[in-house]
């Protein structure tokens, strides 16, 4: 499976955000870098099918299962960690697997407190766990390490590596050095 992005353009209210973006991404990590407001989130939204491009095409994802860590955590605030994972996974939820991943990320599946009581970093790690446990062919990560300390960044990067073996991973990050060990393909978005 290979993602093909060709001559992608997107503007909001006449202000161009992406102009003529082209790249292809196969299994492995593709790091998308750009200055703040440079279109990283917009590009991921287009790839996830949440918005349509003004022009250009995205192909190769016709039957792909998508997963994502969004720029915001997008968790169900009144449910606990397991409740959030169950919402996405349904009957595919396996408590042992979920518990093991949460533990690796420094969280606990036994923690029954609602997510609204979580710290920012805990929410971030739970949204990463949700993305990794959902079956996927392409994983879009929008600033997944925001709010994490060095130790948790290292843990999160290790989990992404082990869960995303052989999958397409798009990482939009200010600090791509967290994934440097992975020797990612780099896509630099130019100022439109």
């Amino acid at each position: 499976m290979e993602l093909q992005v060709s001559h992608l353009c997107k503007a909001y209210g006449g202000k161009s955000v992406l102009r003529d973006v082209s790249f292809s991404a196969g299994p492995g990590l593709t790091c998308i870098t750009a200055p703040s407001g440079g279109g990283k989130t917009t590009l991921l939204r287009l790839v996830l099918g949440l918005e349509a491009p003004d022009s250009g095409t995205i192909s190769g994802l016709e039957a792909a299962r998508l997963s994502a860590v969004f720029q915001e955590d997008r968790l169900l605030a009144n449910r606990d960690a397991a409740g959030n994972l169950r919402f996405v996974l349904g009957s595919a939820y396996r408590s042992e697997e979920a518990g093991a991943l949460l533990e690796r990320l420094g969280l606990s599946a036994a923690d029954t407190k609602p997510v609204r009581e979580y710290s920012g970093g805990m929410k971030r790690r739970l949204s990463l766990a949700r993305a990794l446990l959902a079956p996927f062919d392409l994983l879009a990560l929008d600033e997944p390490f925001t709010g994490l300390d060095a130790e948790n960044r290292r843990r999160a990067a290790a989990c992404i590596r082990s869960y995303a073996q052989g999958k397409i991973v798009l990482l939009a990050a200010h600090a791509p050095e967290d994934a440097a060990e992975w020797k990612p393909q780099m896509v630099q978005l130019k100022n439109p």
Partner: protein
Amino acid sequence: MTSTTPETERRPFRFWAAVFWLLVWQAASMALKSWYPHGDLLLASPLATLRRLAELAVTAPFWAAAGRSAGHILAGFLLACALASALAALSARFERVRELLAPLVAVIKAVPVMSFIILAFLWVPTALLSMFIAGLMVFPPVYLNVLEGIRHTDPRLLEMARVFRVPPGRCLRGLYVPQVLPYFRSACSLALGLCWKSGVAAEVIGVIRGTLGEQLYNAKIYFETADLFAWTVTIVVLSAAFEKLFLRAVDALARKVGA
């Protein structure tokens, strides 16, 4: 879950305030009786009302009337809730449905309930009059509030569900129901009072046999003021009891779904 019930609603009034107004009622009734020989026909005292209520409460017609009225009015309430919620969901999904229903809802809200009762008296069988009118009064607040609740569902969570291909049933339980329940609860709190008032008014106008409305009508005809007050107290108690029970059930559901 944090409670969806505001503090003012949980304790709508203090005991001392209720006692104060009962004393005012008793004093006013005694004063009328002392100024005018048939003063108790104008205002029955709380004690006379209570005495009459106790007499009525041990008779079969009392329970039959209460049961019949409650059955019709609550059936109207529940049917209207179901219809309003379903149409609100359709309106949220299809702009045209919302546009189509907007004038109808505005008319139901604006037209005096008495006009509807008189018209419905011509349209629907008498036995169904109170059910129809109660439902009609419940429809607008429930429809509008549920629609508002659906429209306030976090679009970012809906996008998340879309990316992860969460099935519609799970979206309904996990996203829409928790979002809509507080709106639905507040609409029901308002609508339950409305449906009892309008339903009993329809029974009075239609003089529907064996109902609370008919008893109120008879009390008026025969100038039985104590009866009028006793039946009114019965309606208030039934209305308050059902409101409490229903809202408690909604709160329990809200806790279950994490609203």
